[in-house]
């Protein structure tokens, strides 16, 4: 469980994180989505005690990270892929981190095996690809078998196999009842991985709730129809609230009238529809709506 209350970070006059509140619950994967520079990494660094908040608090299991007695046994974090000395071997890098909590060599070999680095454990990190560095960081995060996992852009640099693997891993960690917070600027990744979604933009929380609810709350389903007789269909569905956009290929997109309504209007007017489909809003649409109209949707959306 992660609780962030009125968390603020200012660098001089610039506000990086502006009085944000959110809670990350155990048992699900929570996505933390926002463009580069939105304040994602700064927020995560404050949760991990690396950056000092200007105001507010960030707590893990009810304690500030700085006050956790054995932090690695409660929280595992991958904050930056490039976080190992190039001249050190992967094994020694993880061994040194493990030693701070009295964790032994057997567990180090075990986590290196879990992330698929056992064959290169005794190679220097300098020769590692970005994806291998991500796996190394993940190995360090898993060392203490923590109940809370925080990952900042973990899929960067991973090959397709690695991305599928990490998705499965996050699912598994959440299903074991752990708290999983995953930040990304990649919407496709969020759509694939996250159950809950927190959207951040310009240092403020734009939305917070179950992913489908967040999307539904800021997007509207569109009925897409195809007909040879588009002019008459436009007349037939015309109403105060209905918006019709004409696309290429005799396709119309109709908002504020469901598929049944469109079909009945077409039947009444004698217009033949060759295709009719309801398109749900995508995360991409939701995200654009959220960031474009920041003030309108600055309140909490969903399960609050």
């Amino acid at each position: 469980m992660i609780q962030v209350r009125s968390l603020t970070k200012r660098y001089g006059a610039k506000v990086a994180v502006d009085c944000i509140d959110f809670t990350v619950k155990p048992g699900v994967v929570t996505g933390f989505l926002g463009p580069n520079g939105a304040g994602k990494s700064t927020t995560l660094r404050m949760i991990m005690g690396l950056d000092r908040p200007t105001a507010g608090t960030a707590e893990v299991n009810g304690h500030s990270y700085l006050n956790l007695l054995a932090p690695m046994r409660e929280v595992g974090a991958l904050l930056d892929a490039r976080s190992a000395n190039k001249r050190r071997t992967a094994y020694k890098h993880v061994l040194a981190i493990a030693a701070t909590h009295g964790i032994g060599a057997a567990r180090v070999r075990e986590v290196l095996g879990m992330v698929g680095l056992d064959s290169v454990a005794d190679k220097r990190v300098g020769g590692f690809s970005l994806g291998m560095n991500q796996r190394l960081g993940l190995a360090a995060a898993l060392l203490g078998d923590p109940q809370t996992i925080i990952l900042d852009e973990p899929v960067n640099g991973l090959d397709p196999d690695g991305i599928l693997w990490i998705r499965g891993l996050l699912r598994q960690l959440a299903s074991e009842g752990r708290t999983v917070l995953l930040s990304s600027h990649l919407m496709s990744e969020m759509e694939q991985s996250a159950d809950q979604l927190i959207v951040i933009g310009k240092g403020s929380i734009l939305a917070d709730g179950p992913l489908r609810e967040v999307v539904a709350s800021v997007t509207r389903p569109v009925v897409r129809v195809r007909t040879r007789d588009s002019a008459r269909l436009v007349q037939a569905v015309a109403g105060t609230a209905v918006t019709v956009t004409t696309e290429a290929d005799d396709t119309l997109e109709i908002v504020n009238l469901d598929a049944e309504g469109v079909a009945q209007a077409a039947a009444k007017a004698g217009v033949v529809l060759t295709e009719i489909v309801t398109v749900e809003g995508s995360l991409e649409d939701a995200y654009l709506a959220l960031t474009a109209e920041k003030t309108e949707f600055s309140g909490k959306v969903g399960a609050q």
Partner: protein
Amino acid sequence: MVVTAQRGRMDAPTVRPAFVHVLHSEWIKFFSLPSIVLGLAGIILFGVGGSLFLGVTLESSGVPSEFSAERTMADVTVSAVVIGQIIAGVIGVLVIGTEYTSGSVQPTFVAVPDRLRVLSAKAIVAGVACAIAGAFTVFTAWAVNTPIYAQFGLDVQLTTPGVLQVLAGSALYLGLCSMFGVGVGTLVRSTTAGSIIVFLATLVFPIAVSLLPFGIVSRFLRIIQLGNAGDAMSRINEVGAPFLDVWTGHISFGAGSLIAVTWAALALIAGAVVLQAKDV
């Protein structure tokens, strides 16, 4: 795939890992960096090699007519101290500086959020390692030079008054230089800037202040130099010499030790203040 070591563990650990675990972690990091291991080898090679060079050239450069333990011990310790102080200081800078340049500082402080614990562990590991390397260096230098100096009746024994103190003092000084480097590296967070400061403090400033016009200010500046403290800690004092004499510039073993400890402590305190105040 198995992720958990103990499946379904929900216990929140209530025991804080002991400081010795942090020391162990820093010890692993210290000896797994090739540049640091190379530095330790450099202290030994230059220290023993330089001293041996003075030994084998003793006859051609003019053998002293009178036995002086002070002169013989100076030949034993001078290269270990003069070259070693720079290497030990740079090793100290590397201990923390490489964490910032490589990004490994982030997992370090995630694993140990108490920043002063990390800094103390780094200072202790670097200080102890460089002091041990220094002790090995000066002892070896004494051992290899003794047969050469014995040909001229200039050899000193470990039982000769002051000899053990000077061997220990040289080792202690290198340890303190390394701790000074850790403090400086924490302060500037750059291996380049930190190494330059070490070079200035140990070698350049003592020479620079000796060029200043004679006066109370230049005399005072002279006795507080880190490099001059090292000189005092690796030299046999004349019997009855004062603790500290500003006008003659005489620094006793005790005064030199105090000055070197002060430099290391001030650098570490300054580093600690910055480390606590700034974001990682």
